[in-house]
């Protein structure tokens, strides 16, 4: 009972899907988490360019597009809900609400049927109610993943299926995986650039303008020790000084390098902690 074409387009970027499947495979047991992305009502993309006008006569209805760009998960089963399937945010602070960009959730169950379970269905209802009014109205998205491996772990398979919560049922829907290339040009009609760079006055005449600490912080997030004055100068000059640009780029790379090292270190610590947790769980389940 798939959805009719043209009502809702579901898509996920290849990288986001790979990250999601990796998360599901790396978890020791089952896991679940929130899906982030964007839902928008967009006019249908123009039909392929044609020399003949008559083909493009009838404009199609605006279609709802839901594209998944990422996920967040605690690598733990049933981390989003209580045993009765009522949504509660995974953080300790229960008053905090999920980020407004949540479009749905995923659940990974090893070697089980690709049908929503009793609790997933209840969670879909509960999460949908929580998200109501906070985002563009759209049906809640649910991705069910079922990883499995051959007995000697030589082959790993990942079955997944997307569902939309429509009329209080989770209805299977087709999910497009978006990769880079001309075949996916349609997707870029939905692209709207969003830069974290602060919007700076571009005119050097405003040199006396005292920039705020917030603005400096925003720049520091991308490159250390590159004064906002210099950035202003860079943006202001029409020619674009190559040396300054190179300097900024090198600074950005250094910053990335530093972040990568930090991530590596913390990853090791996370892994150590997870192994300790695993031992505790073994003890708790009486499986030592």
């Amino acid at each position, binding site marked *: 009972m798939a959805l009719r074409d043209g009502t809702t387009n579901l898509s996920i970027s290849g990288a986001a899907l790979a990250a999601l499947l990796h998360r599901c495979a790396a978890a020791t047991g089952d896991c679940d988490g929130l899906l982030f992305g964007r839902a928008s009502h967009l006019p249908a993309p123009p039909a392929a360019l044609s020399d003949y006008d008559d083909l493009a006569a009838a404009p199609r209805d605006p279609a709802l597009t839901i594209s998944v760009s990422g996920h967040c998960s605690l690598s733990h089963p049933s981390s989003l809900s209580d045993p009765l399937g009522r949504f509660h945010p995974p953080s300790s602070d229960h008053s905090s609400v999920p980020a407004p960009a949540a479009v749905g959730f995923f659940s990974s*169950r090893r070697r089980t049927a690709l049908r929503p379970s009793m609790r997933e269905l209840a969670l879909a209802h509960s999460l949908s109610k929580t998200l109501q009014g906070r985002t563009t109205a759209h049906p809640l998205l649910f991705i069910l993943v079922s990883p499995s491996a051959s007995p000697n772990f030589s082959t790993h398979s990942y079955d997944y299926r997307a569902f939309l919560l429509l009329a209080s049922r989770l209805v299977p829907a087709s999910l497009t995986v978006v990769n880079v290339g001309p075949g996916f040009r349609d997707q870029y009609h939905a692209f709207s650039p969003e830069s974290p760079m602060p919007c700076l006055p571009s005119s050097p005449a405003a040199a006396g303008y005292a920039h705020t600490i917030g603005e400096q912080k925003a720049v520091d997030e991308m490159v250390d020790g590159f004064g906002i004055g210099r950035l202003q100068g860079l943006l202001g000059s029409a020619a674009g000084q190559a040396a300054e640009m190179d300097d900024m780029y090198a600074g950005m790379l250094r910053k990335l390098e530093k972040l990568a090292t930090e991530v590596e270190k913390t990853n090791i610590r996370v892994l150590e902690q997870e192994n300790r947790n695993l031992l505790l769980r073994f003890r708790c389940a009486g499986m030592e």
Partner: protein
Amino acid sequence: MSPSADAAAPVSTSAPPLAPLIAAQLSYLLSHSKLPIRVGQIWSGCRNGRHSDRFTLSIPFCLDYVHWDFVYNALSPKVAPDVVFGPDDEGFQPLVDYAEAGNDASCLARWDYRDPRGLVALVHELRELYIEYHKKQVAKVDDARVTFELSTVLSKEGIEVCMVPSADRPDEVKFAVPLLDVDFDFNKLVPGCPWRLPQKIHLQVIFPISRSSSYSSVPSAPRLKLTSTSDLKSLFSVEDVKLPPWSNGMCLAEYLPALEESLNLLVVEASASIGARRRFIEALAPTFGRPIEADPIFCRRATVLSISGVFTFLVHFAIPLQFPKQQPVLTLQSSQHCNADGIPITSPPINDYPWSPRWDQAEMVERIYDFLTDECQNFKKFCSDTVTQQK
């Protein structure tokens, strides 16, 4: 992907052992539930696959079984199990209904992973909800007769109904009506009864749903069938019960009382028949010697050792449920002759010897003894011939 559990599959030997806390819950369920629940496949959902933590349970519903997957997590023992229902039950949403009703009396709300009674409570709770769900589904059927039947018999305790979808025929509605009292205990009729589960007799009634286009004043009669739990077959055979005819325009509420009354009589008769069979087995002793084997509870089987000259043989008595109306079936088995496979030679079943139900037990045994005195010579010859042919 979902393992089918149609056969009463024994626990798969290739699966790793269940995690201890889950195994405790499952074994508590199997030993304490009043329902004949069966375990299908058991498998593991851990990455390392060392412990099993999910299984399929076949749960009795409406004289059939539904197969539900129970999904635990061996490495997250505190997390309550989740359930995946069958592919046709996507409308069954017990937790959504709980949320809408603001009900948190469910056993899941106070799930204690150390309590072995958790699973049995969950299974029974979900089965009750499932029965109610199907009653609501059937109530939506647009058929005057089904609506009427529902309004009159649905209050009967233990009744279950469901839709029977079929591709090539119009849908049907199945009623599973428990007969006799809900607390009628067969175990009390039979001293020393070994049955652990309560035994039941059900009337299965299948109503065809008349298509609204084909108008007829008298709806066709439903298909009726008596069924019983399998253990009951050694006491009482529902196949022998003749169902009263269903007259036109009848309804279940009219039909059931007469059936229940006659069934009650038959059940009492069946339990009285045990006494007759027991006296028959006891009467064997003076003539044949003490039986070397006998069924002490239902008294359906007895075996004696006999000697004619130097020929030693066993006589197996299979005593029918309708004893003494029907005579016991005799099978002779030689203690001295084996066939080519090394199996003792046995005679075909014998049930055409002289018999009258009016004889008393001692006379029955006498007559059988007289019959066997001649018959054993034929059997001895049969055995010798078989052995000679092999050489």
